[in-house]
Protein backbone atom coordinates (compact mmCIF):
# COMPACT_ATOMS: atom_id res chain seq x y z
CA UNK A 1 0.00 0.00 0.00
CA UNK A 2 1.63 3.24 -1.07
CA UNK A 3 1.12 5.28 2.09
CA UNK A 4 2.67 8.72 2.46
CA UNK A 5 5.54 9.32 4.87
CA UNK A 6 3.33 11.56 6.95
CA UNK A 7 0.64 8.91 7.31
CA UNK A 8 3.19 6.30 8.34
CA UNK A 9 4.66 8.72 10.87
CA UNK A 10 1.26 9.51 12.44
CA UNK A 11 0.42 5.80 12.47
CA UNK A 12 3.68 4.69 14.01
CA UNK A 13 4.01 7.59 16.42
CA UNK A 14 0.42 8.62 17.07
CA UNK A 15 0.07 11.97 18.84
CA UNK A 16 -2.39 12.53 21.68
CA UNK A 17 -3.42 8.95 22.31
CA UNK A 18 -5.43 8.61 25.47
CA UNK A 19 -8.60 9.45 27.34
CA UNK A 20 -9.98 12.36 29.32
CA UNK A 21 -12.52 11.97 32.09
CA UNK A 22 -15.88 11.85 30.34
CA UNK A 23 -17.63 13.25 33.40
CA UNK A 24 -15.59 16.46 33.55
CA UNK A 25 -17.79 19.47 32.80
CA UNK A 26 -15.28 20.92 30.34
CA UNK A 27 -14.76 17.68 28.37
CA UNK A 28 -16.67 16.66 25.23
CA UNK A 29 -16.60 13.06 24.05
CA UNK A 30 -17.37 11.79 20.56
CA UNK A 31 -17.55 8.10 19.73
CA UNK A 32 -18.34 7.16 16.17
CA UNK A 33 -18.40 4.00 14.12
CA UNK A 34 -19.01 0.44 15.18
CA UNK A 35 -16.95 -2.69 15.66
CA UNK A 36 -19.25 -4.35 13.12
CA UNK A 37 -18.07 -1.98 10.40
CA UNK A 38 -14.49 -2.43 11.53
CA UNK A 39 -13.82 1.08 12.73
CA UNK A 40 -14.51 3.03 15.91
CA UNK A 41 -13.07 6.39 16.86
CA UNK A 42 -13.27 8.01 20.25
CA UNK A 43 -12.21 11.63 20.30
CA UNK A 44 -12.26 13.94 23.31
CA UNK A 45 -11.68 17.66 23.75
CA UNK A 46 -11.25 19.88 26.79
CA UNK A 47 -11.85 23.63 26.67
CA UNK A 48 -10.75 26.39 28.98
CA UNK A 49 -13.70 28.49 30.10
CA UNK A 50 -15.83 28.91 27.01
CA UNK A 51 -12.89 29.71 24.84
CA UNK A 52 -10.40 27.39 23.25
CA UNK A 53 -9.62 23.70 23.06
CA UNK A 54 -6.64 23.10 25.34
CA UNK A 55 -6.49 19.32 25.20
CA UNK A 56 -7.53 16.71 22.63
CA UNK A 57 -7.18 12.94 22.89
CA UNK A 58 -8.21 10.05 20.70
CA UNK A 59 -8.35 6.26 20.46
CA UNK A 60 -9.08 4.31 17.30
CA UNK A 61 -10.06 0.76 16.44
CA UNK A 62 -9.44 0.66 12.73
CA UNK A 63 -6.91 0.62 9.96
CA UNK A 64 -3.70 2.62 9.72
CA UNK A 65 -5.46 5.46 7.88
CA UNK A 66 -8.11 5.75 10.57
CA UNK A 67 -5.47 5.83 13.30
CA UNK A 68 -3.43 8.49 11.51
CA UNK A 69 -6.58 10.55 10.79
CA UNK A 70 -7.55 10.57 14.46
CA UNK A 71 -4.08 11.53 15.49
CA UNK A 72 -3.82 14.38 13.01
CA UNK A 73 -7.29 15.64 13.95
CA UNK A 74 -6.32 15.98 17.61
CA UNK A 75 -3.33 18.11 16.63
CA UNK A 76 -5.44 20.37 14.47
CA UNK A 77 -8.00 20.82 17.24
CA UNK A 78 -5.59 22.40 19.69
CA UNK A 79 -6.20 26.10 20.27
CA UNK A 80 -9.44 26.21 18.24
CA UNK A 81 -12.86 27.41 19.39
CA UNK A 82 -15.73 24.96 19.04
CA UNK A 83 -16.91 26.69 15.88
CA UNK A 84 -13.43 26.50 14.44
CA UNK A 85 -13.22 22.82 15.40
CA UNK A 86 -16.20 22.12 13.16
CA UNK A 87 -14.31 23.60 10.23
CA UNK A 88 -12.02 20.56 10.15
CA UNK A 89 -13.25 18.47 7.25
CA UNK A 90 -12.37 14.94 6.28
CA UNK A 91 -11.23 16.16 2.87
CA UNK A 92 -8.52 18.28 4.52
CA UNK A 93 -7.31 15.36 6.57
CA UNK A 94 -7.38 13.02 3.57
CA UNK A 95 -5.42 15.54 1.52
CA UNK A 96 -2.84 16.20 4.19
CA UNK A 97 -2.19 12.48 4.78
CA UNK A 98 -2.45 11.72 1.05
CA UNK A 99 -4.94 8.93 1.72
CA UNK A 100 -5.46 6.59 -1.24
CA UNK A 101 -9.01 6.93 -2.66
CA UNK A 102 -10.29 3.72 -1.09
CA UNK A 103 -9.14 5.00 2.31
CA UNK A 104 -10.76 8.42 2.21
CA UNK A 105 -13.74 7.11 4.17
CA UNK A 106 -11.41 6.41 7.10
CA UNK A 107 -10.95 10.16 7.60
CA UNK A 108 -14.72 10.70 7.63
CA UNK A 109 -14.63 8.98 10.98
CA UNK A 110 -12.43 11.75 12.38
CA UNK A 111 -14.70 14.53 11.11
CA UNK A 112 -17.77 12.80 12.54
CA UNK A 113 -16.05 12.20 15.88
CA UNK A 114 -15.15 15.91 16.13
CA UNK A 115 -18.77 16.88 15.49
CA UNK A 116 -19.98 14.36 18.04
CA UNK A 117 -17.52 15.64 20.66
CA UNK A 118 -18.47 19.28 20.05
CA UNK A 119 -22.18 18.43 20.30
CA UNK A 120 -21.58 16.54 23.51
CA UNK A 121 -19.74 19.48 25.04
CA UNK A 122 -22.36 22.03 23.92
CA UNK A 123 -25.07 19.80 25.34
CA UNK A 124 -23.21 19.68 28.66
CA UNK A 125 -22.73 23.45 28.67
CA UNK A 126 -26.40 24.02 27.96
CA UNK A 127 -27.47 21.73 30.78
CA UNK A 128 -25.00 23.38 33.16
CA UNK A 129 -26.42 26.79 32.23
CA UNK A 130 -29.99 25.57 32.90
CA UNK A 131 -28.96 24.21 36.26
CA UNK A 132 -27.33 27.53 37.20
CA UNK A 133 -30.46 29.41 36.16
CA UNK A 134 -32.63 27.10 38.21
CA UNK A 135 -30.46 27.31 41.27
CA UNK A 136 -30.32 31.09 40.88
CA UNK A 137 -34.08 31.33 41.29
CA UNK A 138 -35.36 32.07 44.77
CA UNK A 139 -36.44 28.87 46.39
CA UNK A 140 -39.91 28.93 47.92
CA UNK A 141 -39.73 27.64 51.43
Amino acid sequence: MPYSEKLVDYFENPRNVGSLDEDDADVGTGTIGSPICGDVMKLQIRINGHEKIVEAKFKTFGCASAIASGSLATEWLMGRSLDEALEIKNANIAKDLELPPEKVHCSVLAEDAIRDAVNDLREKMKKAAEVTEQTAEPQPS
Partner: protein
Amino acid sequence: MKKRIYLDNNATTPLDPRVLEAMMPYLTDKFGNAASRDHSFGWEALEAVDRAREQVAALLGAEPREIIFTSGATEGNNTVIKGLAEMYADRGRHIITQPTEHKAVIDPCRYLDKHDYRITMLGVDKYGRIDLNELRDTITDGTILVSIMHGNNEIGTLQPIAEIGKICKEKGVFFHTDVCQTFGKVPIDVQEMGIDLLTLSAHKIHGPKGVGAMYVRRKNPRVRPKPLLHGGGHERGLRSGTLNVPGIVGLGMAAELCGRDMATESKRLTGLRDRLRDGIMSGLDMIFLNGHPTERTPSNLNLAFAYVEAEALMMGFKEIAASSGSACTSASLQPSYVLRALGVDDMLAHGSIRFSLGRFNTADEIDHVIERVIAVVKEKREISPLYEMAQKGIDPRKVEWKVH
Protein backbone atom coordinates in the same frame (compact mmCIF):
# COMPACT_ATOMS: atom_id res chain seq x y z
CA MET B 1 13.62 -2.49 6.65
CA LYS B 2 14.66 -5.50 8.69
CA LYS B 3 14.96 -8.87 6.99
CA ARG B 4 11.56 -9.71 5.53
CA ILE B 5 9.70 -12.82 6.63
CA TYR B 6 7.22 -14.40 4.24
CA LEU B 7 4.22 -16.02 5.93
CA ASP B 8 1.73 -15.78 3.09
CA ASN B 9 2.37 -19.15 1.49
CA ASN B 10 -1.32 -19.90 1.03
CA ALA B 11 -1.44 -16.98 -1.40
CA THR B 12 1.64 -18.00 -3.32
CA THR B 13 5.03 -19.56 -2.62
CA PRO B 14 8.59 -18.79 -3.66
CA LEU B 15 9.89 -20.95 -6.48
CA ASP B 16 12.11 -23.77 -5.27
CA PRO B 17 15.56 -23.37 -6.89
CA ARG B 18 15.43 -27.05 -7.91
CA VAL B 19 12.21 -26.35 -9.79
CA LEU B 20 13.78 -23.42 -11.59
CA GLU B 21 16.73 -25.60 -12.50
CA ALA B 22 14.43 -28.22 -14.00
CA MET B 23 12.58 -25.53 -15.97
CA MET B 24 15.59 -23.67 -17.33
CA PRO B 25 16.39 -25.91 -20.32
CA TYR B 26 12.77 -25.56 -21.49
CA LEU B 27 12.99 -21.78 -21.34
CA THR B 28 16.19 -21.84 -23.41
CA ASP B 29 17.55 -24.63 -25.64
CA LYS B 30 14.62 -27.05 -25.45
CA PHE B 31 11.98 -24.55 -26.52
CA GLY B 32 10.04 -26.91 -28.77
CA ASN B 33 6.27 -27.20 -29.11
CA ALA B 34 5.11 -30.43 -27.47
CA ALA B 35 2.66 -30.91 -30.35
CA SER B 36 5.37 -30.85 -33.04
CA ARG B 37 5.62 -34.48 -34.05
CA ASP B 38 8.11 -34.04 -36.87
CA HIS B 39 11.36 -33.17 -35.14
CA SER B 40 13.42 -33.66 -32.01
CA PHE B 41 12.56 -30.21 -30.60
CA GLY B 42 8.97 -31.35 -30.35
CA TRP B 43 9.85 -34.82 -29.09
CA GLU B 44 11.94 -33.57 -26.19
CA ALA B 45 9.20 -31.15 -25.18
CA LEU B 46 6.59 -33.92 -25.31
CA GLU B 47 8.82 -36.20 -23.29
CA ALA B 48 9.15 -33.54 -20.61
CA VAL B 49 5.38 -33.00 -20.51
CA ASP B 50 4.76 -36.74 -20.22
CA ARG B 51 7.18 -36.97 -17.32
CA ALA B 52 5.42 -34.11 -15.55
CA ARG B 53 2.08 -35.84 -16.13
CA GLU B 54 3.44 -38.91 -14.39
CA GLN B 55 4.86 -36.85 -11.54
CA VAL B 56 1.50 -35.18 -10.89
CA ALA B 57 -0.51 -38.40 -11.32
CA ALA B 58 1.78 -40.24 -8.89
CA LEU B 59 0.83 -37.86 -6.09
CA LEU B 60 -2.89 -38.44 -6.68
CA GLY B 61 -3.08 -42.17 -7.29
CA ALA B 62 -4.31 -41.30 -10.80
CA GLU B 63 -3.35 -42.45 -14.28
CA PRO B 64 -1.13 -40.00 -16.17
CA ARG B 65 -3.67 -39.65 -18.99
CA GLU B 66 -6.25 -38.44 -16.51
CA ILE B 67 -4.14 -35.32 -15.87
CA ILE B 68 -4.97 -32.24 -17.96
CA PHE B 69 -2.66 -29.25 -17.75
CA THR B 70 -4.21 -25.80 -17.34
CA SER B 71 -3.15 -22.26 -16.61
CA GLY B 72 -4.04 -22.70 -12.95
CA ALA B 73 -6.84 -23.57 -10.62
CA THR B 74 -9.09 -20.70 -11.68
CA GLU B 75 -9.20 -22.14 -15.17
CA GLY B 76 -9.53 -25.66 -13.79
CA ASN B 77 -12.47 -24.78 -11.56
CA ASN B 78 -14.21 -22.90 -14.36
CA THR B 79 -13.75 -25.79 -16.77
CA VAL B 80 -15.01 -28.35 -14.31
CA ILE B 81 -18.06 -26.42 -13.17
CA LYS B 82 -19.19 -24.76 -16.38
CA GLY B 83 -18.01 -27.64 -18.55
CA LEU B 84 -19.91 -30.27 -16.59
CA ALA B 85 -22.99 -28.09 -16.34
CA GLU B 86 -23.07 -27.74 -20.09
CA MET B 87 -22.28 -31.37 -20.84
CA TYR B 88 -24.81 -32.88 -18.46
CA ALA B 89 -27.57 -30.27 -18.63
CA ASP B 90 -30.05 -32.91 -19.85
CA ARG B 91 -29.34 -34.99 -16.73
CA GLY B 92 -30.05 -32.12 -14.39
CA ARG B 93 -29.31 -28.53 -13.59
CA HIS B 94 -28.47 -28.65 -9.91
CA ILE B 95 -25.02 -28.11 -8.34
CA ILE B 96 -24.09 -28.31 -4.67
CA THR B 97 -21.22 -26.40 -3.13
CA GLN B 98 -20.40 -24.43 0.05
CA PRO B 99 -20.09 -20.74 0.91
CA THR B 100 -16.42 -20.99 1.94
CA GLU B 101 -15.11 -22.04 -1.47
CA HIS B 102 -12.55 -19.93 -3.33
CA LYS B 103 -14.05 -17.30 -5.64
CA ALA B 104 -12.90 -19.43 -8.55
CA VAL B 105 -15.63 -21.91 -7.56
CA ILE B 106 -18.22 -19.49 -6.16
CA ASP B 107 -18.27 -17.21 -9.17
CA PRO B 108 -18.70 -19.87 -11.89
CA CYS B 109 -21.58 -21.20 -9.76
CA ARG B 110 -23.08 -17.72 -9.53
CA TYR B 111 -22.74 -17.44 -13.28
CA LEU B 112 -24.65 -20.68 -13.75
CA ASP B 113 -27.24 -19.55 -11.26
CA LYS B 114 -28.03 -16.72 -13.68
CA HIS B 115 -28.31 -19.20 -16.52
CA ASP B 116 -31.08 -21.42 -15.24
CA TYR B 117 -29.07 -23.70 -13.03
CA ARG B 118 -29.87 -24.16 -9.36
CA ILE B 119 -27.02 -23.81 -6.87
CA THR B 120 -27.28 -25.03 -3.30
CA MET B 121 -24.88 -23.65 -0.73
CA LEU B 122 -24.54 -26.14 2.11
CA GLY B 123 -24.28 -24.80 5.63
CA VAL B 124 -20.94 -24.93 7.43
CA ASP B 125 -20.35 -25.25 11.17
CA LYS B 126 -18.25 -22.85 13.25
CA TYR B 127 -15.10 -24.60 12.06
CA GLY B 128 -16.12 -24.40 8.41
CA ARG B 129 -17.06 -28.07 7.95
CA ILE B 130 -20.13 -29.22 6.07
CA ASP B 131 -22.69 -31.60 7.50
CA LEU B 132 -22.65 -34.94 5.67
CA ASN B 133 -26.30 -35.62 6.42
CA GLU B 134 -27.28 -32.29 4.95
CA LEU B 135 -25.24 -33.13 1.87
CA ARG B 136 -26.97 -36.50 1.54
CA ASP B 137 -30.40 -34.91 1.91
CA THR B 138 -29.65 -32.13 -0.56
CA ILE B 139 -28.73 -34.36 -3.47
CA THR B 140 -31.71 -34.84 -5.80
CA ASP B 141 -32.30 -36.58 -9.12
CA GLY B 142 -31.38 -33.35 -10.83
CA THR B 143 -28.02 -32.95 -9.07
CA ILE B 144 -25.06 -33.29 -11.40
CA LEU B 145 -22.13 -32.09 -9.35
CA VAL B 146 -20.94 -31.65 -5.78
CA SER B 147 -17.96 -29.30 -5.47
CA ILE B 148 -16.30 -29.17 -2.04
CA MET B 149 -12.69 -28.10 -1.56
CA HIS B 150 -10.25 -30.25 0.39
CA GLY B 151 -8.45 -27.60 2.48
CA ASN B 152 -9.68 -24.03 2.83
CA ASN B 153 -7.26 -21.33 1.72
CA GLU B 154 -8.27 -18.85 4.38
CA ILE B 155 -8.96 -20.86 7.51
CA GLY B 156 -7.17 -24.14 6.70
CA THR B 157 -10.13 -26.36 7.59
CA LEU B 158 -10.08 -29.81 5.97
CA GLN B 159 -13.30 -31.36 4.73
CA PRO B 160 -14.04 -35.08 5.12
CA ILE B 161 -13.33 -35.69 1.46
CA ALA B 162 -13.45 -39.51 1.49
CA GLU B 163 -16.91 -39.47 3.13
CA ILE B 164 -18.16 -36.91 0.65
CA GLY B 165 -16.81 -39.03 -2.19
CA LYS B 166 -18.63 -42.04 -0.84
CA ILE B 167 -21.95 -40.23 -0.63
CA CYS B 168 -21.56 -38.90 -4.17
CA LYS B 169 -20.78 -42.38 -5.44
CA GLU B 170 -23.86 -43.83 -3.70
CA LYS B 171 -26.03 -41.13 -5.20
CA GLY B 172 -24.42 -41.23 -8.61
CA VAL B 173 -23.35 -37.59 -8.84
CA PHE B 174 -19.95 -36.26 -9.85
CA PHE B 175 -17.62 -35.09 -7.09
CA HIS B 176 -15.14 -32.28 -7.69
CA THR B 177 -12.62 -31.04 -5.15
CA ASP B 178 -10.27 -28.04 -5.32
CA VAL B 179 -7.03 -29.27 -3.73
CA CYS B 180 -4.89 -26.14 -4.22
CA GLN B 181 -4.15 -25.97 -0.52
CA THR B 182 -3.57 -29.67 0.13
CA PHE B 183 -1.90 -31.04 -3.00
CA GLY B 184 1.63 -32.07 -2.05
CA LYS B 185 0.97 -31.42 1.63
CA VAL B 186 -1.76 -33.86 2.63
CA PRO B 187 -2.11 -37.38 1.13
CA ILE B 188 -4.68 -37.53 -1.67
CA ASP B 189 -5.87 -40.63 -3.49
CA VAL B 190 -8.57 -40.19 -6.10
CA GLN B 191 -9.62 -43.85 -5.85
CA GLU B 192 -9.82 -44.11 -2.07
CA MET B 193 -11.49 -40.72 -1.82
CA GLY B 194 -13.95 -41.24 -4.64
CA ILE B 195 -12.87 -38.08 -6.45
CA ASP B 196 -14.09 -37.64 -10.04
CA LEU B 197 -12.56 -34.26 -10.76
CA LEU B 198 -9.85 -32.32 -9.00
CA THR B 199 -8.09 -29.03 -9.57
CA LEU B 200 -4.71 -27.77 -8.43
CA SER B 201 -2.18 -25.03 -9.01
CA ALA B 202 1.64 -25.09 -9.19
CA HIS B 203 2.39 -21.80 -7.47
CA LYS B 204 1.03 -23.00 -4.14
CA ILE B 205 3.72 -25.71 -3.92
CA HIS B 206 6.88 -23.77 -4.80
CA GLY B 207 6.24 -24.16 -8.51
CA PRO B 208 5.74 -21.40 -11.10
CA LYS B 209 2.65 -19.21 -11.49
CA GLY B 210 0.27 -19.59 -14.39
CA VAL B 211 0.20 -23.38 -14.54
CA GLY B 212 -1.96 -26.01 -12.91
CA ALA B 213 -3.71 -29.26 -13.59
CA MET B 214 -7.07 -30.99 -13.50
CA TYR B 215 -7.70 -34.62 -12.80
CA VAL B 216 -10.59 -35.88 -14.92
CA ARG B 217 -11.67 -39.47 -14.25
CA ARG B 218 -11.66 -41.76 -17.28
CA LYS B 219 -13.54 -44.74 -15.93
CA ASN B 220 -16.03 -45.69 -13.16
CA PRO B 221 -17.49 -43.32 -14.20
CA ARG B 222 -16.05 -41.62 -17.24
CA VAL B 223 -16.35 -37.83 -16.91
CA ARG B 224 -16.36 -35.55 -19.91
CA PRO B 225 -16.69 -31.82 -19.23
CA LYS B 226 -17.05 -29.53 -22.22
CA PRO B 227 -13.88 -27.53 -22.76
CA LEU B 228 -13.68 -23.83 -22.00
CA LEU B 229 -11.13 -23.24 -24.73
CA HIS B 230 -11.69 -24.62 -28.20
CA GLY B 231 -8.86 -24.91 -30.68
CA GLY B 232 -6.13 -27.36 -31.58
CA GLY B 233 -7.57 -30.15 -29.46
CA HIS B 234 -4.68 -30.42 -27.01
CA GLU B 235 -5.05 -32.32 -23.74
CA ARG B 236 -7.65 -34.81 -24.99
CA GLY B 237 -9.59 -31.92 -26.42
CA LEU B 238 -10.30 -30.66 -22.91
CA ARG B 239 -7.91 -27.75 -23.06
CA SER B 240 -6.71 -26.40 -26.37
CA GLY B 241 -3.65 -24.20 -26.56
CA THR B 242 0.08 -24.78 -26.98
CA LEU B 243 1.33 -26.37 -23.80
CA ASN B 244 3.29 -24.23 -21.36
CA VAL B 245 6.18 -26.68 -21.37
CA PRO B 246 8.53 -24.94 -18.89
CA GLY B 247 5.60 -24.31 -16.54
CA ILE B 248 4.42 -27.89 -16.77
CA VAL B 249 7.95 -29.18 -16.14
CA GLY B 250 8.06 -26.91 -13.10
CA LEU B 251 4.73 -28.23 -11.82
CA GLY B 252 5.96 -31.81 -12.27
CA MET B 253 9.18 -31.14 -10.40
CA ALA B 254 7.39 -29.23 -7.64
CA ALA B 255 4.99 -32.16 -7.21
CA GLU B 256 7.83 -34.66 -7.07
CA LEU B 257 9.69 -32.63 -4.44
CA CYS B 258 6.54 -32.50 -2.30
CA GLY B 259 5.99 -36.22 -2.70
CA ARG B 260 9.55 -37.10 -1.67
CA ASP B 261 9.18 -36.04 1.94
CA MET B 262 5.55 -35.19 2.45
CA ALA B 263 5.31 -36.90 5.83
CA THR B 264 8.36 -35.22 7.37
CA GLU B 265 7.65 -31.82 5.85
CA SER B 266 4.04 -31.95 6.94
CA LYS B 267 5.18 -32.74 10.46
CA ARG B 268 7.70 -29.91 10.39
CA LEU B 269 5.13 -27.38 9.16
CA THR B 270 2.55 -28.53 11.70
CA GLY B 271 5.21 -28.07 14.39
CA LEU B 272 5.99 -24.53 13.25
CA ARG B 273 2.29 -23.70 12.93
CA ASP B 274 1.55 -24.84 16.47
CA ARG B 275 4.68 -23.13 17.81
CA LEU B 276 3.42 -19.87 16.32
CA ARG B 277 -0.09 -20.35 17.72
CA ASP B 278 1.09 -21.31 21.20
CA GLY B 279 3.72 -18.58 21.29
CA ILE B 280 1.26 -15.84 20.41
CA MET B 281 -1.48 -17.18 22.67
CA SER B 282 0.83 -17.48 25.67
CA GLY B 283 1.78 -13.81 25.37
CA LEU B 284 -1.69 -12.32 24.82
CA ASP B 285 -5.25 -12.82 26.02
CA MET B 286 -8.39 -12.74 23.88
CA ILE B 287 -6.86 -14.46 20.85
CA PHE B 288 -9.08 -16.92 19.00
CA LEU B 289 -8.32 -19.56 16.40
CA ASN B 290 -10.33 -19.41 13.19
CA GLY B 291 -10.97 -22.75 11.51
CA HIS B 292 -10.70 -26.26 12.87
CA PRO B 293 -8.28 -26.88 15.78
CA THR B 294 -6.94 -30.18 14.43
CA GLU B 295 -8.53 -30.91 11.04
CA ARG B 296 -6.59 -28.23 9.20
CA THR B 297 -3.80 -27.92 6.65
CA PRO B 298 -0.28 -28.03 8.12
CA SER B 299 0.55 -24.60 6.71
CA ASN B 300 -2.38 -22.50 7.86
CA LEU B 301 -2.83 -20.52 11.06
CA ASN B 302 -5.65 -17.98 11.20
CA LEU B 303 -5.97 -15.97 14.40
CA ALA B 304 -8.47 -13.37 15.55
CA PHE B 305 -7.03 -10.59 17.70
CA ALA B 306 -9.86 -9.04 19.68
CA TYR B 307 -10.14 -5.21 19.90
CA VAL B 308 -7.68 -4.44 17.09
CA GLU B 309 -7.95 -4.27 13.32
CA ALA B 310 -5.94 -6.54 11.06
CA GLU B 311 -4.56 -4.00 8.62
CA ALA B 312 -3.27 -1.79 11.42
CA LEU B 313 -1.54 -4.81 12.95
CA MET B 314 0.10 -5.78 9.69
CA MET B 315 1.24 -2.19 9.13
CA GLY B 316 2.75 -2.47 12.58
CA PHE B 317 4.84 -5.54 11.75
CA LYS B 318 5.65 -4.50 8.22
CA GLU B 319 8.60 -6.84 7.79
CA ILE B 320 6.26 -9.80 8.22
CA ALA B 321 4.11 -10.71 5.21
CA ALA B 322 0.79 -12.21 6.29
CA SER B 323 -2.72 -11.63 5.04
CA SER B 324 -6.11 -10.52 6.16
CA GLY B 325 -9.05 -11.55 4.06
CA SER B 326 -10.92 -9.38 6.45
CA ALA B 327 -9.50 -5.86 6.21
CA CYS B 328 -12.14 -3.28 5.47
CA THR B 329 -10.10 -2.16 2.49
CA SER B 330 -13.12 -1.28 0.44
CA ALA B 331 -15.78 1.27 1.12
CA SER B 332 -18.19 -1.60 1.59
CA LEU B 333 -16.47 -2.49 4.88
CA GLN B 334 -17.26 -6.16 4.45
CA PRO B 335 -15.11 -8.54 6.40
CA SER B 336 -14.08 -11.89 4.90
CA TYR B 337 -17.00 -13.87 3.48
CA VAL B 338 -15.39 -17.08 4.73
CA LEU B 339 -15.27 -15.90 8.34
CA ARG B 340 -18.84 -14.61 8.01
CA ALA B 341 -19.99 -18.02 6.79
CA LEU B 342 -18.51 -19.49 9.98
CA GLY B 343 -20.45 -16.97 12.03
CA VAL B 344 -17.30 -15.32 13.40
CA ASP B 345 -18.17 -12.17 15.34
CA ASP B 346 -17.69 -9.04 13.21
CA MET B 347 -15.16 -7.40 15.50
CA LEU B 348 -13.10 -10.59 15.51
CA ALA B 349 -13.42 -10.95 11.75
CA HIS B 350 -11.97 -7.44 11.34
CA GLY B 351 -9.08 -8.46 13.59
CA SER B 352 -8.23 -11.74 11.87
CA ILE B 353 -4.89 -12.50 10.25
CA ARG B 354 -3.81 -15.53 8.27
CA PHE B 355 -0.22 -16.67 8.72
CA SER B 356 0.66 -19.40 6.22
CA LEU B 357 3.89 -21.34 6.22
CA GLY B 358 6.01 -22.86 3.53
CA ARG B 359 9.12 -24.89 2.86
CA PHE B 360 11.56 -22.07 3.51
CA ASN B 361 10.28 -20.86 6.87
CA THR B 362 12.42 -21.61 9.91
CA ALA B 363 11.87 -21.86 13.65
CA ASP B 364 13.97 -18.72 14.14
CA GLU B 365 11.62 -16.80 11.89
CA ILE B 366 8.63 -18.07 13.85
CA ASP B 367 10.19 -16.96 17.13
CA HIS B 368 10.80 -13.50 15.73
CA VAL B 369 7.21 -13.33 14.49
CA ILE B 370 5.85 -14.34 17.90
CA GLU B 371 7.79 -11.56 19.58
CA ARG B 372 6.79 -8.89 17.08
CA VAL B 373 3.12 -9.87 16.91
CA ILE B 374 2.78 -9.77 20.68
CA ALA B 375 4.46 -6.35 20.87
CA VAL B 376 2.37 -4.81 18.10
CA VAL B 377 -0.96 -6.19 19.35
CA LYS B 378 -0.23 -4.75 22.81
CA GLU B 379 0.67 -1.42 21.28
CA LYS B 380 -2.47 -1.24 19.14
CA ARG B 381 -4.68 -2.33 21.99
CA GLU B 382 -3.34 0.60 23.98
CA ILE B 383 -4.84 2.94 21.39
CA SER B 384 -8.06 0.95 20.90
CA PRO B 385 -11.28 2.35 22.39
CA LEU B 386 -12.72 -1.17 22.38
CA TYR B 387 -9.89 -2.52 24.50
CA GLU B 388 -10.41 0.36 26.92
CA MET B 389 -14.10 -0.56 27.17
CA ALA B 390 -13.29 -4.18 27.76
CA GLN B 391 -10.88 -3.21 30.54
CA LYS B 392 -13.77 -1.36 32.18
CA GLY B 393 -15.91 -4.46 31.86
CA ILE B 394 -18.06 -3.16 28.98
CA ASP B 395 -18.77 -5.61 26.16
CA PRO B 396 -18.35 -3.68 22.88
CA ARG B 397 -20.96 -5.94 21.30
CA LYS B 398 -23.64 -4.73 23.68
CA VAL B 399 -23.10 -1.03 23.12
CA GLU B 400 -25.38 1.03 20.91
CA TRP B 401 -23.11 2.52 18.27
CA LYS B 402 -23.47 5.67 16.26
CA VAL B 403 -22.63 4.44 12.81
CA HIS B 404 -21.06 7.10 10.65
